[in-house]
Every structure is written in structure tokens, then in C-alpha cells.
């Protein structure tokens, strides 16, 4: 009886008695949800266009952030005196690196593996993960680095808002992250719906063969898509890096994108966003209100269990394409 009370009543009473804390928790969940959603977005882009379940997306995030920080340090070392100039130069160079990476992946990995079963391509992205970890650490060193948030002029500090009988603190960086994420989703949506390349991307997602037969170049599309995922990875890397630091520990965060992904459905961009927010908010609420009951640290698996429960009812995720089976 006591346990039931603690599970079903007490957390809600706590929420009611301290609404400011609830808002704070919700906000934190929302922000981390948006960042999960950004990683998941990279997955969705690639899965839609090439049917590859890209495990390396998480590493691409780290790799992009590492390249940015590393290039910035190199530029400063070579005598670029202004931190800001160096930062934006490094940003531009990182975009070039991500483009090179997209071309390299298409040439070396995807093209020879065309028409192989999904699991083989999935494995190949594992190989890419290992390769990128080694490369990143070899070139820029393995120790954790600080994101160049100041030189990029990312906002700092917090806004304290008085509400509901208490203070709720919003980090400016988090607000910026949420804004940038929304802008990026909007841009991607327009890109997919309105542009020529976007239409070609959707055609490829529907059917490789049909797209080829109307003269769409698969190679070109794949480069575009991997480059887009690379840019998403770069933005995600900057945001995550500014919140903690840049190291391969971010890889674990990237694994969190997987439940987001399946919750939203592997092929749906809005799904990635909604899934991210559900997971982020659910995780923070669970950790804060129910966590103390069964020992802390439940954040590490709660996301997966939430996704699992949703999947029991909708096996294709919330917004995924309906699975139709034929003999």
C-alpha cells in the first residue's frame, strides 16, 4: 500500500506542491529532447534516402565537433590572432571536411555495397564508427576538449523567470539550441518539399529502381544526404559540446537517439522531433520524481523502456510507415 502510494500518488503531489520545479524539469527534458531529436534527425535523413541504418551518426557528431575545436586550435597556433575569425574559419573548414567525408563514404563504402542486405550496411557503418574514432583521436588527440562557445558567440548565462511561486532558470544556450533546432527542421522540411534535389530525395526514398529509371543519380543523392546528415551532426556537436565538453563520451548520448528514432518511426522527420521530446521529458520526469524510489541512475535505461512500451502498441513507431506484409 505504501509502495503504491509512492508510485502513483506521491510524485503527482510533489508536482502539484512545487509547480516551479515541475516547469524546470519539463524545460530540461524539453531541451535534452530537442538535442536527442537532432541526432535522430541525422539518422532519419540517411535511412529515408538510402535505407542505411547509420550507426555512425553519433560518431559523426563527435567527429564534427572535434574537427571544429581541433581546427580552431590549429588556426590559432598558425597565427590567426582573432578568436572569432579563427572560429568561423574553422566552422567553414569543418563543413568542407564533412563534405569530403560524405563523398568518401559514398565512394568507399556505399557504392561497393549497393544491393546488400540491410544488416551488412549496418555493419559497414560500425566499421566507419571505429575508423572515425581512430582518425579523430589520431589527428586531434583523445583528451576531452572545451567547445569554442565564446568564440562562436553562443549566448551564455541564464534568464531567471519568476513564476508559480518560485524561480525557473532558463539557460540562454538551451533557448538558442531549441531555436536552432526548430529552424533547422523547418529548413529541412522546405528543402525536402520544395527543391528539385529534395524531390529527388523523396523519390529515392520511395523506390531506388523507379528513381534510377527516371534519371536520378543515386550517387549524387547519397552524397547530398550524407552531407546534410554531416551538417546536422556538426550543429548537434556544437550544441552538445557547449553543454558538456567534446569527447567520445558523447557516443553514449548518441545511443540515446536510438529509442527516439524507433519511437518516432525510422522514416519520419516529425517523428524524430516528437519522439525526442517525449523521450527527453519522460526521462527527466522519471529520473526526478520516480528515480529516488528505485535508486538513481534510471535515466540510463528509462528511454529504452519508454520506447519499448510504445512499440508494443505501434510496432512501426508513432509516425513510421505502416508495415504491410505479403507472402
Amino acid at each position, binding site marked *: 500500500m505504501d509502495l503504491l502510494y509512492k508510485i502513483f500518488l506521491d510524485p503527482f503531489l510533489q508536482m502539484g506542491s512545487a509547480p516551479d520545479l515541475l516547469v524546470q524539469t519539463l524545460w530540461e527534458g524539453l531541451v535534452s529532447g530537442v538535442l536527442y531529436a537532432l541526432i535522430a534527425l541525422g539518422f532519419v535523413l540517411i535511412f529515408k534516402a538510402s535505407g542505411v541504418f547509420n550507426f555512425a551518426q553519433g560518431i559523426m557528431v563527435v567527429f564534427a565537433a572535434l574537427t571544429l575545436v581541433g581546427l580552431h586550435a590549429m588556426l590559432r597556433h598558425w597565427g590567426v590572432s582573432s578568436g572569432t575569425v579563427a572560429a568561423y574559419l574553422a566552422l567553414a573548414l569543418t563543413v568542407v571536411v564533412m563534405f569530403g567525408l560524405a563523398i568518401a563514404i559514398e565512394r568507399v563504402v556505399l557504392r*561497393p555495397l549497393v544491393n546488400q542486405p540491410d544488416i551488412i550496411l549496418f*555493419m559497414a557503418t*560500425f566499421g566507419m564508427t571505429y575508423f572515425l574514432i*581512430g582518425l579523430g583521436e589520431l589527428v586531434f588527440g583523445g583528451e576531452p576538449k572545451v567547445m569554442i562557445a565564446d568564440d562562436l558567440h553562443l549566448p551564455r548565462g541564464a534568464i531567471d523567470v519568476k513564476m508559480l511561486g518560485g524561480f525557473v532558470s532558463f539557460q540562454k544556450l538551451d533557448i538558442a539550441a531549441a531555436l536552432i533546432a526548430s529552424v533547422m527542421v523547418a529548413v529541412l522540411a522546405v528543402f525536402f518539399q520544395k527543391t528539385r534535389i529534395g524531390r529527388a530525395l523523396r523519390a529515392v526514398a520511395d523506390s531506388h529502381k523507379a528513381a534510377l529509371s527516371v534519371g536520378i543519380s543515386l550517387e549524387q543523392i547519397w552524397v547530398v544526404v550524407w552531407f546534410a546528415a554531416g551538417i546536422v551532426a556538426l550543429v548537434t556537436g556544437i550544441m552538445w559540446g557547449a553543454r558538456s565538453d567534446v569527447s567520445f563520451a558523447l557516443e553514449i548520448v548518441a545511443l540515446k537517439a536510438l529509442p527516439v528514432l524507433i519511437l518516432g518511426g525510422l522514416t519520419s522527420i516529425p517523428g524524430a522531433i516528437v519522439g525526442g521530446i517525449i523521450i527527453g521529458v519522460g526521462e527527466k520526469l522519471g529520473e526526478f520524481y520516480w528515480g529516488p524510489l528505485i535508486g538513481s541512475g534510471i535515466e540510463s*535505461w528509462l528511454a529504452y523502456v519508454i520506447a519499448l512500451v510504445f512499440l508494443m502498441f505501434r510496432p512501426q513507431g508513432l509516425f513510421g510507415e505502416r508495415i504491410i506484409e505479403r507472402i
Partner: protein
Amino acid sequence: MFYRETGQFKTTYRADQAVFPILQDRLGIAIILALAFAGVPLLASEFAISSFFIPVLVFSLAAIGLNLLTGYTGLLSLGTGAFMGVGAYGCYKLATWFPGVNILILILASGFFSAAVGVVFGLPSLRIKGFYLAVATLAAQFFLSWCFVRIPWLVNYNISGAIEVPTRTLFGIAVTGPNATATTRYLVALSIVVLMTWLASNLVRGRFGRMWMAVRDMDLAAELIGIRLYRTKLLSFAVSSYFCGVAGAMMAFLWFGSSEADTFNINQSFFILFMVIIGGLGSLVGSFFGAIFIWGTPIMLKTVPRLFGLSIHAATVEHLTFMILGALIIFFLIVEPHGLARLWQIGKQKLRVWPFPY
């Protein structure tokens, strides 16, 4: 020429359906077993046995377990590490409860714990498929990892929070614990692996294996010919987890001698998945090849530069190892997507027709 079944007549169905119907195969397996049981303990150094041969045996068994699930039944799982962990912790608890019982029996029995856990986490597999299922099994991985850290009862409230393997003897010789020599542990591990491989090879050739393969190839069609999907998938989860659990118990008791919760983390699961896919999905011999390749390559990469007298910084070697391993995985997938097992088959076929091209 060298590998040819000409002239080997079978007079009974029994002989025709043997695991190794061809004389050369029987000779080959006898030589391999003789080398493994006698050659390795006599010739290899203590260090080589404990850092290469025992790990390869443990990983081979885990890879066979995952192969039964992923390669034969077509269910992708990323929870192997956790299922191995359940076996290790189960074995530790059993060894505490029954100090007098033969340790071999305990190791084999600990697999049943992970089989039970595997069935629970396999329950969603009827509705959830493909990559969705893979992520669902991640729930098992992270939840169980959390349990290993948070439930001190599992490690008998040790301060270190790790399994400390007690000394157990077999015929008066220490088999586990700090006093056991690498050679004894190797021989025990080898016996278990040989026994379990024999079991697995008979399973996949029999009715269950055929049911699993039918489900893998098309589960709807399998259901239409009268295979009960749910039972088959759950059975596959159970058997696979049983193998992984035994491998985990071996890992803690016969390899490390003590093991922390972190041993059974997500990277372990990925590692074993590599072995299965590089070795060859749906092939038992491939599981061995995969384990040898994935475990052996980094060791080789570390020792080869030293042989040539190159001195590279240790950290650089580590990074290069990662890069080369990643590149090799991609290379192998491009050259032979069906894994090392297929290369083995091609090699055998070449030997059969040599000196003719076909």
C-alpha cells in the same frame, strides 16, 4: 584432389546424415581437436593461453549464441553483453549457494538464468521486427547493466562491487580462482566449448534449427506451414541466451577471475555482433573464425610493429588499431558480405576441384 568424397560410399541413412560425412572432414576435425587439447597446452606460453586462447574460446561460444538468434532465426539482438552478464552473476550466486557442487555443473546451469531473462526480453519479438527489435533489445542491455551496478546482492555485498571468483577444484586441481593455472582453465573452457558446439550443431541440423531458419527466411510463410512463431522465436531467444550466459560465466570464472559490471556493457554486445557478421551469419564455424579475427587482429596490430623494431607511441598504436579494425571490417564486408565462413567454403571447393578450375 585433396578434398574429395569420391569412393566414400554410405550404406545407411545414419552414416549419410552424420555431422561430418566426409573422411577428410573427420580427419581435419580430429587434428584440430588434438592440437587444441594437446598442442596448445604443451606448446603455447602461459601468457598466450590466457590472453589469446581462452578469450577466443569464450567469445566463440558467445558468438555461437548470438548466431543462433541473429544468423539462424533472423532476430537482431544488441543485448548479448547483458545476457553474458546474467550468466556470470548467476554462476557467482550459484557458487555461493552450493559450494560443494562441481563447478562445471554450475557454469552450465548458470546459462538457465540468462535463458529465462532472454525469454522475458524476447517477448516483444512477435510484434517488433528488424531494427526496431534491435533497439528493443538495447533496453535489456541498459536495464541489466544498471541492475549489475545497483543491486549489491548480486555480488554478495562485496565492497569492490565486483565478482570475486572463489577457488573451486576439480579432481583436486584448482579450476577457478587465483590459484588455477591458465592451462587448466583453458582445458576446462575448451571442453565446455566443444560440448556446446556439438550441441549447437545438432540443434541447427534438427527440427528446431529448421524451424528457426524458416522463420528467418520469411516468418509469415513459416507460420502458414504450421510453425508456431511465438514459441519458435522465444525458444531461439532462450537457447541463444543460454549459450551467451554460459559464455559469460566462463568469462568471469575461467578468464578474468573477477569481473565488474562494466565488463558486460554495450561495447561487449557490439563486439560479439562484429564476430558473428565478420565470421558469417548462420554458420557455426564462422563464429570461431569471427572470434579469432576480431580478437586476434588488435593483438597482431600491437605486436607486428614491434617485430620490425618500430617504436610507435602506445596511444598512437591504440588509435591506429581502431582505424585499421574499422577499415578491415568495411573491407571484408565489401569483399565477402557472407563472412569468413563463405571464404572457407570457397577454399574447400577450390581444393576439391584442384588442379582444374571447375
